[in-house]
Every structure is written in structure tokens, then in C-alpha cells.
């Protein structure tokens, strides 16, 4: 469940955003659309607690993010959210498998080799598990960042342009997978995109 109310954010540079209220029931999916510069990524960072809220409230499940201390917010994000960033980031010193294992380690020190293998198989990066991430192709990187976001079975999945670097076939595969994973655990899925191919795959749209 995601709920926002009168959400407002101002950067120190003076740019400020007022966001329309969002209300998603458990398991709802939402596509966030809008031209560059309207604050799509800012909204995603507010919802995931990466940016401090200037005013208004964000509630995920039964937890209001405003009320959490920084440390609790870190742990909450680690447990409840899976985030796919616009640029893919990994720990370059580690292999694909170790990157996935590291995501499980925070914040609850989990270990689940079976889950890593299963997810890697479904995303088509099973053969890459023992490679260093720098050896991956662009598409493989994208799928790895999705695997990392999903591995913790989060209640909320945020994705910032997840299909930008994928071809048609993989685009559909990835969106289907995200929807499937979200549905399996009745997680909320919130996707920011320009991608017209994705637009048709969701009913619920929000234009900023």
C-alpha cells in the first residue's frame, strides 16, 4: 500500500515540486508518465525515502516514512523496497552472484542461494553468475539490476526507466517479469517511463 498526501519538495537550488496525491491499494501497479524535469525521479526518491520530504506525508504499508529515524528508514527501505535506478549501479569488485548475495545481506544478513539461482535463471543471467559485472552486456546489466531489486521479495518495487536499454522482446519479458513478481508477493509496482511499449501494458497511469 502506498499513500501520499500533499507531497511537496524544494531543492536548495529553488526548484520545487508539488505532487498529486497517490493512493495505491495492496498489489496495485502504477505507471508514472511525464516529460523530463517534472520531478518523476524526485517523486521516486521521496517515496523510497532517499530524499527528505519538505512537507506532506508518504505512507508505505502502515508506516509513515516521515516518522522514521534515518537508521530505521535505511532498514525499512532495505526490507520493503526494491529499486531499479535509471542508471544501473553495481559493486564492480564483485561477481553477479556476489552482487545478488550482497543485496540479501542488507539489512537482515539473509542468505538464499536457491533464490539467487532461480531468479538468475528466470532473468536469463544464470550463465553470468560467476562473471564480474563489468563483463556484462548492457541488456544483462539491466536484467541484473532488476534481479537485485526483486531478490528481497519487496512489498514495493520502484523502477526508473527499466526498459530504456532493452529490445522489444526483452522489454516485454522484463515488464512481464516485474508484473509477475509484483503479483506473486502482492507488491506494489511503480514504474517511471517514457517507453510507449510499456504504456500499453498497464491500465493505471499517472501524468505529472
Amino acid at each position, binding site marked *: 500500500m502506498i499513500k501520499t498526501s500533499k507531497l511537496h519538495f524544494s531543492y536548495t537550488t529553488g526548484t520545487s515540486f508539488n505532487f498529486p496525491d497517490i493512493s495505491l491499494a495492496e498489489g496495485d501497479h502504477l505507471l508514472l508518465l511525464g516529460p523530463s524535469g517534472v520531478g518523476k525521479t524526485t517523486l521516486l*526518491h521521496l517515496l523510497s525515502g*532517499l530524499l527528505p520530504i519538505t512537507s506532506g506525508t508518504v505512507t508505505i504499508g502502515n508506516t509513515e516514512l516521515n516518522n522514521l529515524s534515518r537508521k530505521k528508514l535505511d532498514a525499512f527501505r532495505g526490507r520493503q523496497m526494491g529499486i531499479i*535506478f535509471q542508471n544501473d549501479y553495481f559493486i564492480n*569488485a*564483485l561477481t553477479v552472484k*556476489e552482487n545478488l548475495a*550482497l543485496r540479501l*545481506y542488507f539489512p537482515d544478513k539473509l542468505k538464499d542461494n536457491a533464490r539467487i539461482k532461480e531468479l538468475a535463471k528466470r532473468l536469463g543471467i544464470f550463465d553470468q553468475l560467476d562473471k564480474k559485472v563489468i563483463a556484462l552486456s548492457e541488456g544483462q546489466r539491466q536484467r541484473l539490476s532488476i534481479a537485485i531489486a526483486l531478490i528481497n521479495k519487496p512489498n514495493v518495487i520502484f523502477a526508473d526507466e527499466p526498459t530504456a536499454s532493452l529490445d522489444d522482446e526483452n522489454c516485454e519479458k522484463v515488464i512481464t517479469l516485474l508484473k509477475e513478481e509484483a503479483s506473486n508477493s502482492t507488491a506494489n509496482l511503480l514504474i517511471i517511463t517514457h517507453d510507449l511499449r510499456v504504456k500499453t501494458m498497464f491500465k493505471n497511469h499517472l501524468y505529472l
Partner: protein
Amino acid sequence: MNLVKLSYKNLVSKPLNAVLSLLLLVLSVALVTFMLQLSSQVKGNLDKNIKPVDLVVGAKGSPLQLVLSSVLHIDAPTGNIKLKDAEKLRKSRLVKAAVPVSYGDNYKGVRILGTETNYLKLYNAELANGTLFSKSHQVVLGSTTAKKLNLKLGDTFLSSHGLADQSLEEHHDHPFKVVGVLKQTGSVVDNLIITSLESIWDVHNHSGEEHHEEDLEVTSLLIQFSNPMAMVQLPRYINDKTNMQAALPSLEINRLVKLLGVGVQTIQLIALAILLVSGLSIFISLLKAIRERRQELALLRTYGATSGQLLWLVLLEGLFLGFIGYVVGWLFGRLGLWVISTYAQNSYGYTFNLTTPTKWEAILLFATLAITVLASVLASLSVFKLNVSKILSSEK
């Protein structure tokens, strides 16, 4: 996967960076441990060898030279003294024991020391096999000498004139015979060939005449005091009233060690300065690593890692560096000691113990780790100010 493993992987993923930031640390640890061991072992070695001898009486000259030649057997003697003068001193009530020693020859660079059998008592040297010398031209070998020269009981050899190997003149008509080999004592005795005073006199008596008691000479007389008063009275008497000189080994060696100590201290200070600079270099290298990996650190925050965990991550990396630096530096220090030991063994018959760690080495380990911890903490303070949102939304 855990923080320790992650910090280790981060470290080894950029081995060149790690090596560069470790160079100074390795250098300083190597220098400090090397100098610590060298000075403490040299001092220990010297103390052990001069302890049995309270006073050396020899020909006038440098007192340090007299001690070095007659007690430590590493310098040329100052000259000779008349045996009858030495005998007079022997009868003094201030003297508990006195042993005359005499030089003249060497065999393959090993000094042949003419003395009395009670010289061996000074160093508690015991026979491993064979007997003590009783006739002229019988010798006993120190344990190291026996191994080095590969001589056994019953073997004979011809000595060369002088104390160094270079001498070409051999005494062809006076072969020495090995009658005994000594147990290892860890003192100068191990590196000597020991024979009677008569042997030395015989070798140099080319005319084949009988010895004239009047003309007999020895190099010096080693004395043990009978009471503490002797330390004041005896040297003064000898230096003022005779044409010999008396030297106190402990005093001379202390002076020598003090002189060397200035050099040792200077090197120690330089090494400590390098240690501080190495802390700075680790600080800079970690700071650089944090900067290069700020996106990775921000990513870990989105995974739910706390700032404290990120601090740990950097701290662990610093500790790895500090520990590896210390171990490698320590090994290099020992390698240096081994090289010096091999050299000293060949030149002076001294060896250095490679294993004994001193408490200063433990203190140095803690100092090294403390410096790296300080450097890591200072370097990693910026993780608390990490703007995760900004770092992760900016273009790569």
C-alpha cells in the same frame, strides 16, 4: 557475503592502488623492526661477550681497540706487553683471576688465540669431544670454527702469519694438530682456534733457541676483579705506574654503543616519520577509493546499509592495509637481518637471531593499526554526508 568479504574484494580489485598505498608503510615497518632487532641483538651479543672480563691490560694505544681486539677479537691488537709485567699484576690482591692471551697467526682467516686453559672457564666453554691442549701446537676449536673449517680431531694444518687471511707467509715447519672441539657457547669462543701460549711463542721463534723468560710477550691480560674497589684502583695504578694501559670493556663498549645509538636513533626517527607519512598515504588512498566508489556506497545505502556499516567497510579496508603492511614490512625487516647476519657471520663470526620478537615489535603493530584506523575513520567521515539521491540520479 558480508562486510569483511566486501572490503577485502574491494581492496584486491585494485591491487596497484593497494600496493602504492602500502609502500611507505612497508618501508617504515621494515626499517623500524630491523633497527630494533639489530641494536638490541648487537647490544646483547656485546654484553654477553664482555661480561666475563672486567679489565683488559695491554700495550698503550686506543682503549677501545684493546677491548675490540682482546675481548671481542675483531680488531688488530695495540701491541704486546712483557709476560713478566703481566705476571706481576696477577699476584695483586685485587685480581681474582687473570688470563693472558696472545695473538700472532690465523688459519684461513680464523684467529689462533694463545692462552691458558682457564680462558675457557671465563666463557663456560666445555669440550664436545677430544681433550684440552697440553703440549705445544695442540689446538681446540670453537664449535663454529670446526664446522666452518671442516676440521676434525687429529687433523693438522699450517697457520699463516698475521690475523687476516691475506697473509702469504705460512709457517711450514710448525703444523698445528686438533686435539679437541668445544661445545657451542654462543660467545666469541665459538669462532676461535685456541692453543697454548707456548705454541704462539714456538711459531715465532725462528732461531730455534730456548725461550728467554725475560723476552716473552703476550698481547694482553684479561682480568676479573676480586672486589669492586679494584675497578677504581687497578686501572689507575696500571695507567699511571706502568707502561701498559688498562681498559674497562663495559665502559668502552657502552661508549661505542652510545656512539652507534645516535645513528640508530636517527634511523628510528626517520622510520617513525615515514610511518606517519604512510598513515597520510593510506588516508589519501582511502579517500580516493571512497570518491571513486561513492555511487557504490550510495547504492549500499539504498539496500538498507546504515552509514555506520559503510564506515565499517572503509575501516576494515584500512585495517587490512595496515595489517598486510605490517606483516610484509616485518618480513622485509627480517630479510634485512638475515642478510646482515650472513655478512656478519662471514666477517665477524656473529649471527643474529631471526625469530625473537621484541615487545617493541608488538607495540609497533598496535601503532601501525592505530594509525590506519585513524586514517580510515578520517577518510570515511564523508560517508555520513553521502547525498544518496543526488549521486544516484546524476549521470555516470
